């Protein structure tokens, strides 16, 4: 048989195997997390305080869930607004030096170690207040998500056909009206996707929270200037603890987090699908 053909078959086989190998982990992760954690997905689990390390009742992730909700909402509100306007600026004023530098910086920030952002938030908001607090966590998260949102919003606006932009301006609308009322509805799917991506990131990031919110386990919400917990942080702390019961809670929390991320992911794909029509 032709030697080249043999090599071809072998190499294609190797490539396919390696590709499949690289796809295996995600399935393994999803299966493992749900098989270990799904049994905890009860309403009680979502609301209760965490259990003591040994003995006592089963407990849950209530404070962490509330904390995550608060932190994520704040982060998306802050990071979303800044990110949106930045993205809009990058798209419509792309010819300016400022836009070019900003874009490059944002592209770098996307890959940046988030622990450094947490450190920055510590310097600014924790050290002066001499206390870990929720605001610092939300602040760190919003910095983390701004690049994602800005770059995606930029893409959304860039994909608006130029002729629609001409139409809007030819009707005599001022720039804010044109960009924010008319063109925004045209770009709304892309913008929505951007916000969803930001939300998923804010819900899942841990490193920015490590140095800022402390991760208290026993209060639901004490105020923005007080420590708070969040689901990813709880998973981290409990998984590394020496208590088997807390490991169980970590699996349960991971199942909750995975469900949230999967949901956001699926929604964002559906949103994008409609654009193709």
């Amino acid at each position, binding site marked *: 048989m032709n030697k080249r053909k043999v090599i071809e078959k072998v190499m294609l086989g190797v490539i396919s195997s390696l590709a499949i190998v690289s796809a295996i982990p995600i399935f393994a992760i999803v299966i493992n997390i749900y098989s270990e954690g799904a049994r905890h997905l009860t309403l009680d689990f979502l609301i209760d305080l965490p259990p003591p390390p040994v003995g006592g009742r089963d407990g849950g992730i209530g404070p962490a869930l509330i904390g995550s909700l608060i932190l994520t909402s704040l982060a998306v509100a802050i990071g979303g607004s800044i990110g949106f306007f930045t993205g809009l600026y990058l798209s419509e004023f792309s010819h300016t030096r400022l836009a070019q530098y900003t874009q490059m910086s944002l592209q770098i920030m996307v890959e940046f170690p988030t622990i450094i952002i947490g450190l920055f938030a510590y310097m600014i908001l924790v050290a002066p207040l001499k206390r870990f607090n929720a605001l610092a966590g939300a602040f760190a998260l919003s910095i983390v998500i701004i690049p994602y949102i800005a770059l995606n919003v930029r893409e959304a606006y860039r994909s608006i056909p130029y002729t629609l932009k*001409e139409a809007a301006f030819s009707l005599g609308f001022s720039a804010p009206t044109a960009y924010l009322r008319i063109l925004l509805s045209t770009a709304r799917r892309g913008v929505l996707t951007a916000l969803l991506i930001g939300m998923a990131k804010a819900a899942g990031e841990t490193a920015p929270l490590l140095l800022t919110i402390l991760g208290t386990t026993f209060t639901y919400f004490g105020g923005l200037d007080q420590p708070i917990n969040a689901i990813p942080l709880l998973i981290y702390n409990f998984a590394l603890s020496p208590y088997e019961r807390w490991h169980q809670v970590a699996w349960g929390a991971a199942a909750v987090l995975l469900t949230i991320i999967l949901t956001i992911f699926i929604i964002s794909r559906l949103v994008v699908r409609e654009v193709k029509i």
Partner: protein
Amino acid sequence: MNWAIEVNDLNVWYGDKHVIKNVSFKVPKNIIFAVMGPSGCGKSTLLRAMNRLLELNPYARVEGQVKINGIDVYSDNVDITWVRRQFGMVFQTPNPFPHLSIYENVALGPKLNGLVKDRSELDELVKHSLQQAYLWDEVKNDLKKPASMLSGGQQQRLCIARALALKPKIILMDEPTANLDPVASSKIEELMLELKEEYTIIIVTHNPQQAARISDYVAFLYMGELIEIGETSMVFTRPRHVLTEKYVVGRMG
């Protein structure tokens, strides 16, 4: 003589490229004025220089005057959004806002610019504009449907209605029938002949036959320069410039 628009010594650059060179002309009211020329001669640029839409392009630079009713649209104390509202513009590819309904497409301009006092006035205005654009009868029962559901020719008439709703004085048309089939095109041409009673129409076209068909005055633009201008019948039967003759006869791109 009352001119609809006067263009004096207009020059336009894209970066270093000089694309409109010392163009001057005057357009009388209530006529169809055609600007024709081969591709790339600057016709679309000229049109956009009139309603200052050119400024959406950060690399464009304009010098000269464009006057409507004696006011130079480029003078410092003139509000650019006001300028744009004096013109209605229709583009080569019909571009209604796809996510808005037929009604909303027409209503958007007057509503956001505060031209009407209440809903019933707005309804009247929308109806009147759609009637003027020869579209009312076809869509009067479907006003809430999205604009994207109309055919190409209908979409273009919708865009005309949208432009008319702002009650402009001058209508600018950038090759409005270039992407339409012959039936839809002739409908639009018929419409233009009607509209000139009330408006002044400036149309850019790459098709000299179209210019000959519908325009009263015509200008021939070549490489950014105004080669010839005059009454359509004269320019087509007795062109003064050899380039014009070549173009009219069809020996030019």
